[in-house]
C-alpha cells in the first residue's frame, strides 16, 4: 500500500515548487509585460524574445538545462530550486500575457480621462486602470496556475522529491502503480478545485462589470 506520509511529504514539495515558481513568475512577468507593451520597438522585441524562448522550449527541457547546465550557481544540485527557477521562467511568459491582456482590456479613454485632470502615472494605474485590469488578469492567471501545478510533476525528472517522485518510487518497491498514481492524481485534482472556483468567480465578476451592472 502507498504510505500516506510519503504522499504528504511529496505534496509539501509539490506545493513548494508550485508557490515558489508562481511567485517568481509574477515577479518576472511584470517587466516582461512592460517591455511587451512599450512604445520602443527594441524593448518590445526583447520582451517578445523572452516570451518566445520561455514558452517555446518545453518545460522539461528548461528544468534539465537549468539543473545540469547552469551548474555554476547555487540553483544546481538542489532540484527543488532548479524546478522553481525553470517553471518560474516558463510561467512568466504566460503571466506576462495575462498582465498585458488585462491592461489591453482597459480602453485608452480611461488613461486619457485620468490624464485630462492632471493625474500622474502612479495614481492613474492604481486608482483608475488596475481596478479594471486586475480582475481580467487574475482570471487568466488562475487558469495558468493550474497548468503550473500540473507541470510541477516534471520536477521528478531532475530528482525533486515531489509527489510523482514518491509515487514512482512506491511503484518500484511493489505498490501497484495504478494505485500510486491514481492517489496522487486525485490530490492534484483536489487542488485545482479551489483555484478553478476562484477563477470562475473572478470571470463572473469581470462579465458583470463589463455588462454594466455595478459591482
Amino acid at each position, binding site marked *: 500500500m502507498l504510505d500516506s506520509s510519503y504522499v504528504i511529504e511529496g505534496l509539501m514539495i509539490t506545493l513548494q515548487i508550485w508557490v515558489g515558481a508562481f511567485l517568481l513568475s509574477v515577479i518576472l512577468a511584470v517587466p516582461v509585460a512592460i517591455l511587451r507593451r512599450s512604445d520602443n520597438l527594441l524593448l518590445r522585441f526583447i520582451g517578445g524574445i523572452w516570451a518566445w524562448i520561455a514558452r517555446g522550449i518545453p518545460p522539461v527541457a528548461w528544468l534539465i538545462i537549468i539543473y545540469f547546465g547552469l551548474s555554476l550557481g547555487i540553483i544546481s544540485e538542489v532540484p527543488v530550486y532548479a524546478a522553481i527557477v525553470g517553471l518560474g521562467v516558463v510561467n512568466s511568459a504566460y503571466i506576462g500575457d495575462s498582465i498585458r491582456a488585462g491592461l489591453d482590456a482597459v480602453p485608452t*479613454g*480611461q488613461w*486619457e*480621462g*485620468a*490624464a*485630462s*485632470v*492632471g*493625474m*500622474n*502615472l502612479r*495614481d492613474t494605474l492604481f*486608482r*483608475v486602470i488596475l*481596478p*479594471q485590469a486586475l480582475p481580467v488578469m487574475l482570471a487568466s492567471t488562475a487558469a495558468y496556475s493550474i497548468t503550473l501545478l500540473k507541470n510541477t510533476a516534471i520536477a521528478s525528472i531532475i530528482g525533486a522529491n515531489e509527489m510523482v517522485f514518491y509515487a514512482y518510487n512506491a511503484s518500484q518497491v511493489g505498490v501497484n502503480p495504478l494505485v500510486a498514481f491514481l492517489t496522487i492524481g486525485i490530490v492534484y485534482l483536489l487542488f485545482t478545485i479551489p483555484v478553478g472556483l476562484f477563477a470562475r468567480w473572478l470571470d463572473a465578476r469581470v462579465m458583470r*462589470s463589463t455588462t*454594466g*451592472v*455595478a*459591482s
Partner: protein
Amino acid sequence: MTVPTHSGIALSAREIHKSFGGKEVLKGISADVHKGEHIAIIGPSGSGKSTFIRCLNLLELPDAGTLDLQGERVFDADRRTSASSVRALRRRVGMVFQSFNLFATHTALENVALAQKLVLGRDKNAARKRAEEQLERVGLQDHMQKHPSQLSGGQQQRVAIARSLAMDPEVILFDEPTSAIDPEMRVEVLKVMKELAEAGMTMLMVTHEIQFAQQAADRVMFIADGEALATGTPQEMLVDPPHERIHRFVKAVSGVV
C-alpha cells in the same frame, strides 16, 4: 456677442504642427482664446480639428509650435517637455471628450472628487463638497452614487463636465461633446454648456452643432485639411460664409439641400 477686447488672452496657440506616420494632420494652426471667450471650431471630419484641440492640453504632443497660458509659456516643441509640466498644464486646461471617459469603477461623485484629492491635494470633505456642488450645477444631484454604466450618455457627459469644472480650469476644451449622445439627450448637455458660457467660462469647442455655435460662440473657427481657413463671428462665418468651402460645409451640416 462680440469678441471681448477688455480682457487678456487665456490661451494662445502658435503654429501648431502635428504629423501621424508621415501624414501632416496640422499644418500650423494658431489661435488666441480671450478670457471668457467661447470659440467654436467647425470643419469636416478628418480635418484635424480634434487633433488640434487635443494638442492644446498635450494629449497629443505637437511636433512644432508653442502654447501660452495667461501669457506664460507652458509648451514649446523645441524644448524638452517634462511629464510634470504636462500635468501642470492639464491642471489648468480642462477637457471634455466625445466618449466621456469617466472612470468606470467609480461613482459619479467619486469621478468628480478623485482628481481633486490626488492632483489638487484637497481633503476628502472639501473634494466631496465641491463634487456635490458641481454635480448639482449640471443637474445630477439625484445620480451621484451611480456608476457611469448606469447613466445615459447625456448624464455621463454632464458628469464629465462636472469633473472638469471641479478642477477650476482656466479654459475648458470640448471635443465633439455631443456626437456620441442620442439626439434627445444632446439638449441637456448643450444647455449645461450654454450656462457655462453665460457664466463666463473660457471655452473652446469642436462641434457639429451649428445652431449651438451660433447661439453660444463669440467666434467660429473653420478648419479644413489641417489649416484654419477662416475665423470670425458666428454671423460672418455661418450666416454669410466668407469662403465657398465654408458655405458648402455649413449648408451640408445644417441639412439644407
